[in-house]
C-alpha cells in the first residue's frame, strides 16, 4: 500500500479525536450523539470509510436498518484494509445469524489487526461453525497475546479437546495449573477446572492418575462438587476394576438412594451387570444384594422396584404383591406406568393380573364394611390400576366397566376421568375422550396439567378452536392468542398436536405452518449457544459447556424436530404431486375470508405482537435486556411480518419451491444418527427422487430398507415407485446411470413386471392392513384403474384383519356400510368426510 493512499484514510488529530469519541459513544449505545459525531467528521471527510461504517452501525441500532447496512457496505469498499470496517461488517452479519460470512469478515479484520475483541468473537464464530482447527489457532494467538488471562489457557485446552487432540488439551492444562499461585480453597471456578482436567485424563484412559488427582484435590477441598466427586470416583474405580468400587457406589447410595443408576453401578461392581431397562433378569445373588440395600434404605422405592426385575416365579409374585399392595394403600397414581415395563415378560404380566384381581376382592370386602380395615380409596386405586392393566392389553370394554364402577364410587377423582378419556382415545372415540378429560379439568381448574391434557385431547378430536380456548385459561393474557404464547414459549406439544389436528381436518397448509414453527424454534436453539462460547470460559464451567456443544450437535435428532421435518416434507411432497390440493384449499379459504375479514386482522395483530416480543428477546437472564438508550433496536433484524398466515403460499412454492423447502427440513436429519428411523429415509427418498437426485434417493431407500426390512409396506411402495420412474429416465449421464442401475437391481432383484411384483406382495401380506394399503398405493402409482385400487382398499373390510389403519378414500360412504364390531367405539369413521 502506498503511503499517500494510506494517509488519505488517516484523519487529522481533531477528527481522529472525534472518531475515538464516536467509538466510545457507540460502546455506551449513545446512539443519537454518536450519529451527530459521525456526521461532524463526514462533513469534512465524506469519504472516510471507517466513519461511514460506524455511522451505518449506529443507524442499524436505531432501527434504520437498510440505510445503515448500505452505509456499512459503502464504508467497507472505501477502506478495505481497515480492521474496523471489517469488524463492523462482521457484527452486522453476525446479527443476521450469518455465521459463515461473519467469520470471513472477522478474518479480514484480523489480517490488519490482531485485536483481542475481534479474536474472541472469531473464536465464538469458529466454535459455532465447528471449525475446530482454526479455533485452536485463534486460541493460540489469544494466549500468546495475553498469557496472564486464565481463561486464555483454558480456552486453548478446550479448543484442543474439541479438535480431538486430548493429549494437547492435557499438556496445556498442566502448564496452566503449574502457573497458578495462591488459589483460595473452595473456589468454584478452580473446582470446575479440575473436574475438566480429571475428565480429560479419564478420556485418555489414565484412570490411576485421574483417581489420585481426584482424591487429593477433594481432600484439599479444591473440588467442591460432592456429587461430581463421588460419581467420578465410583466410575474410575469401576474402570480400574478396583475392589473399592462397590464401596464407592455405596457411598453414592448413601447420598441419594433414589438413583437407579447407582444401584446398577453397585451391582455391576459386585460382578452382576444388569442390562438397562430389561423387564426380567433373574439373578438370586444380585437379589440378595438388593434386599440388604432395601433394609438399609427402607424409604427408597428404586431398590424395591429393581427386586421385581431380578426375581422370577414365586419370589417375583410375593415381591410384586408387597410392592403393589403398599403402593395402593399409599395411593400412588403412577403405579401402573411404573409397572408397565415388566409386561414384556408374559409371566410377569399374568402374575400381576392375578395379584391385582385378588387384591380387588380383598379390598372390596375390607372397604365396604363400615369398620373396614382399609381406606375406601385403596379399593378405588385398585380399580384404577386394574382398568389400566386391561386397557394396556387392548381390553377396552373391560377397562371401561371397571372405571364406571370406580366413578360411581368416587366421581371427583380427576385421575379416573383422565384415564377414561385415554381408554376412549385408544378405542378411537376422540370426542368422548376429550369430554372425559374436560370433566377432570373442571374438577381442578387450578391445575395446568389437566388443562394441557384437555387441550391436547381436543386437538386429537380436531377441535382446534375449542383447544385454543382451553389453553387460553393459562397462557399470557397480553399474547395475541394462546397459540402465540405457546409458540413463543416453544411448546412442542402444542405445535405438534395442533399440526396433527390440522392434518386430520384436511388443512395441510395450516399444519405446515406449525411444523415450520418447530423448525424455527430449533434454529433458535442452535443460535442460543452462541453467547455461551465466551461466557462459559469466563465462568470456567467447562464440563457443562462441553456437554452443551455435544447436545447441540445432535439436537435435531430430538423427536419433535424429526416429526415436524418428516410430516412437513410429506405435506410438501403431496402438494408437489397434486397441485389441485392447494387450489381447492385456496378456494375454500377465499370463501371463508370473504365472509369474515376478521381472521386477517387478527393475523396482522399477531404479527405485530410477535415482532414486539422478538425485539424484547435476548439478554442472557431471560429478562428484557437493559436498555442503554431507549432507541436501541439491536443488531438482529426484526421478525418480518407474516405474509402467509394461511400457509398457502408456502404450499404453492411461492418464494421457495416446495421441494426446496422440504429438503431444507430434512437435510439436518442426515447426519444425526437416525439410521434406524424408517420414516426419515422414506421422506428423504420422496424428496430426493423428485428433485432429480437419483443417487441420493436410492441411497435413502437402501437405508429405509435396512431400517424397516424389505417387506415394510412403505418401502414396498417406494421400490415400485423407483422402478416405475426409472423406466422413464433416458438422458442420464455416466457414471450416475450405471450406479443407479446397479442400485435398482439390488432394490428390485426380481425379473417380473412391477404389476406382478405388487400383486405378489399383496398376496403374501393380505392379512396385514398396512401392506394392503401399500399395495393399493403401488397400483395407483402403476396407473391401475380406480376400481382396482378401491377394490384392494375395501378388501380390508371383508376380512377379519385387525383394522388399525387410517384410510382416506374418495368413496367414504362405504365405511358406514362396513361398520365392524371391533371398531364399535370408534367415532372416527362416523365423521362427515372432509376433503
Amino acid at each position, binding site marked *: 500500500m502506498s503511503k499517500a493512499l494510506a494517509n488519505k484514510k488517516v484523519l487529522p488529530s481533531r477528527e481522529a479525536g472525534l472518531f475515538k469519541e464516536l467509538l466510545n459513544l457507540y460502546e455506551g449505545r449513545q446512539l443519537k450523539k454518536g450519529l451527530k459525531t459521525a456526521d461532524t467528521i463526514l462533513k469534512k471527510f465524506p469519504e472516510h470509510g471507517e466513519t461511514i461504517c460506524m455511522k451505518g452501525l449506529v443507524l442499524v441500532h436505531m432501527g434504520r436498518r437498510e440505510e445503515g447496512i448500505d452505509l456499512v457496505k459503502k464504508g467497507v469498499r472505501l477502506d478495505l484494509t481497515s480492521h474496523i470496517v471489517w469488524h463492523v461488517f462482521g457484527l452486522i452479519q453476525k446479527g443476521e445469524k450469518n455465521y459463515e460470512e461473519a467469520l470471513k469478515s472477522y478474518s479480514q479484520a484480523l489480517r490488519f489487526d490482531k485485536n483481542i475483541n475481534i479474536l474472541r468473537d472469531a473464536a465464538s464464530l469458529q466454535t459455532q461453525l465447528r471449525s475446530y482447527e482454526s479455533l485452536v489457532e485463534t486460541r493460540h494467538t489469544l494466549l500468546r497475546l495475553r498469557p496472564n488471562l486464565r481463561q486464555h489457557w483454558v480456552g486453548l485446552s478446550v479448543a484442543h479437546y474439541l479438535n480431538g487432540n486430548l493429549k494437547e488439551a492435557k499438556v496445556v492444562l498442566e502448564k496452566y495449573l503449574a502457573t497458578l499461585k495462591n488459589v483460595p480453597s*473452595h473456589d*468454584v471456578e478452580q*473446582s*470446575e477446572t479440575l473436574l475438566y482436567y480429571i475428565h480429560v485424563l479419564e478420556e485418555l484412559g489414565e484412570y490411576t492418575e485421574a483417581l489420585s488427582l481426584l482424591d487429593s484435590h477433594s481432600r484439599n477441598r479444591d473440588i*467442591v*462438587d*460432592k*456429587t*461430581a466427586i463421588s460419581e467420578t470416583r465410583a466410575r474410575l474405580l469401576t474402570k480400574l476394576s478396583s475392589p473399592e468400587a462397590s464401596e464407592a457406589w455405596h457411598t453414592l447410595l448413601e447420598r*441419594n438412594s*433414589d*438413583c*437407579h*443408576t447407582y444401584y446398577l453401578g453397585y451391582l455391576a461392581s459386585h460382578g452382576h451387570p444388569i442390562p438397562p*431397562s430389561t423387564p426380567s433378569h433373574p439373578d438370586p445373588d444380585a437379589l440378595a444384594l438388593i434386599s440388604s440395600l432395601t433394609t438399609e434404605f427402607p424409604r427408597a*422405592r*428404586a431398590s424395591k*422396584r429393581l427386586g421385581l426385575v431380578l426375581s422370577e416365579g414365586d419370589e417375583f409374585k410375593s415381591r410384586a404383591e408387597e410392592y403393589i399392595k403398599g403402593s395402593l394403600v399409599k*395411593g*400412588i*397414581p*403412577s403405579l401402573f*406406568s*411404573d409397572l408397565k*415395563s415388566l409386561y414384556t415378560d408374559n409371566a410377569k404380566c399374568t402374575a400381576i393380573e392375578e395379584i391385582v384381581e385378588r387384591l380387588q376382592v380383598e379390598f372390596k370386602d375390607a372397604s365396604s364394611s363400615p369398620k373396614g380395615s382399609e381406606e375406601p380409596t385403596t379399593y378405588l386405586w385398585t380399580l384404577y390400576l386394574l382398568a389400566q392393566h386391561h386397557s394396556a392389553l387392548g381390553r377396552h370394554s373391560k377397562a371401561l366397566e371397571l372405571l364406571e364402577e370406580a366413578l360411581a364410587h368416587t366421581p371427583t377423582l380427576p*385421575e379416573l376421568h383422565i384415564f377414561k378419556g385415554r381408554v376412549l382415545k385408544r378405542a378411537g372415540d376422540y370426542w368422548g375422550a376429550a369430554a372425559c378429560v374436560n370433566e377432570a379439568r373442571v374438577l381442578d381448574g*387450578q*391445575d*395446568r*396439567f*389437566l388443562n*394441557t391434557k384437555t387441550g391436547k385431547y381436543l386437538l386429537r378430536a380436531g377441535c382446534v378452536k375449542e383447544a385454543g380456548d382451553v389453553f387460553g385459561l*393459562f*397462557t*399470557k*393474557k397480553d399474547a395475541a392468542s394462546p397459540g402465540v404464547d*405457546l409458540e*413463543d*414459549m*416453544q*411448546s412442542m*406439544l402444542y405445535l405438534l398436536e395442533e399440526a396433527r389436528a390440522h392434518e386430520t381436518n384436511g388443512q395441510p397448509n395450516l399444519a405446515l405452518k406449525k411444523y415450520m414453527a418447530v423448525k424455527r*424454534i430449533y434454529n*433458535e436453539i442452535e443460535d*442460543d*449457544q452462541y453467547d*455461551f462460547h465466551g461466557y*462459559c470460559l469466563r*465462568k470456567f*464451567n467447562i464440563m*457443562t*459447556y462441553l*456437554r*452443551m456443544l455435544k*447436545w447441540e450437535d445432535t439436537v435435531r435428532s*430430538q423427536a419433535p424436530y424429526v416429526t415436524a421435518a418428516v410430516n412437513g416434507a410429506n405435506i410438501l411432497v403431496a402438494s408437489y404431486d397434486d397441485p389441485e390440493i392447494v387450489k381447492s384449499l385456496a378456494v375454500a379459504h377465499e370463501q371463508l375470508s370473504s365472509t369474515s375479514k376478521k381472521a386477517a386482522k387478527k393475523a396482522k395483530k399477531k404479527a405485530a405482537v410477535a415482532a414486539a416480543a422478538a425485539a424484547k*428477546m435476548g439478554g*442472557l*437472564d*431471560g429478562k428484557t435486556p437493559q436498555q442503554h438508550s431507549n432507541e436501541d433496536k439491536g443488531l438482529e433484524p426484526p421478525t418480518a411480518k407474516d405474509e402467509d398466515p394461511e400457509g398457502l403460499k408456502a404450499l404453492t412454492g411461492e418464494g421457495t419451491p416446495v421441494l426446496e423447502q422440504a429438503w431444507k427440513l430434512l437435510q439436518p436429519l442426515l447426519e444425526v444418527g437416525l439410521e434406524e428411523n424408517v420414516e426419515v429415509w422414506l421422506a428423504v427418498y420422496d424428496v430426493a427422487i423428485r428433485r432429480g437426485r437419483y443417487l441420493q434417493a436410492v441411497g435413502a431407500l437402501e437405508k429405509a430398507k435396512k431400517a424397516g426390512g424389505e417387506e415394510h409396506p412403505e418401502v414396498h411402495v417406494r421400490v415400485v415407485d423407483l422402478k416405475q420412474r426409472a423406466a422413464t429416465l433416458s438422458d442420464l449421464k455416466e457414471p450416475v446411470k450405471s450406479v443407479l442401475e446397479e442400485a435398482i437391481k439390488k432394490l428390485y432383484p426380481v425379473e417380473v413386471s412391477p404389476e406382478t411384483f405388487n400383486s405378489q406382495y399383496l398376496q403374501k401380506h393380505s392379512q396385514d392392513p398396512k401392506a394392503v394399503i401399500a399395495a393399493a398405493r403401488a397400483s395407483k402409482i402403476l396407473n391401475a384403474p380406480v376400481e382396482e385400487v378401491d377394490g384392494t382398499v375395501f378388501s380390508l373390510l371383508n376380512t377379519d384383519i385387525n383394522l388399525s389403519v387410517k384410510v382416506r378414500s374418495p368413496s367414504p360412504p362405504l365405511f358406514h356400510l362396513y361398520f365392524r364390531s371391533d371398531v364399535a367405539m370408534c367415532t372416527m369413521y362416523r365423521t362427515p368426510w372432509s376433503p
Partner: protein
Amino acid sequence: MNIRPARVEDLAGMQAANLQNLPENYSMKFWLYHAMTWPQISFVAEDHKGRIVGYVLAKIDDQESSEDPVHGHVNSISVLRSFRRLGLANKLMLASQEAMRSVYKATYVTLHVRKSNKAALGLYRDSLGFKVDKVEEKYYADGEDAYSMRLTMTD
C-alpha cells in the same frame, strides 16, 4: 424413579414439564443459562424410560452487597401430575439445597409461591420448613399475590 443432577440433555424435558405444569414459562435460552452458570444445583426426576417427570431449577442470587450472604433461589419446581405425592418434589428440593450449600456455601434459600397454591405451600412450609418472609402484591402476571419464602440453612 431416578433423582439426579440435571444435565443439558434434560433441559428439553424440563422445559416441556414446566409448560405442562405452570403458567410461568421460559424459552430454551433461559434454561441453558442456568445450566451453564450453576450446573450443580438443578435436579430432575426421571421415570424408568428416562422421561423427565419432575425438576427443580435453581440459581444463586446476585449479592446485593458484599455483606449480603450468598443465597440460592428456586426459580421453578414441578412434578407431572401422575407422579405427584411420591415425595419427588421434596427430594428434589433437598438435593438442590444440599448442593447450594456445599458448592456455593449458600446460607439461605428463597422462592416465590402463589398464595393459593396449597400443595406447594404444604411442601415448602410443612415439609421443608420455609418461612414466609413477606407478601409481594400482584407478583404474578394474572394479579395474584406471592409469598416470598425463605429457608435458613445451617451446617
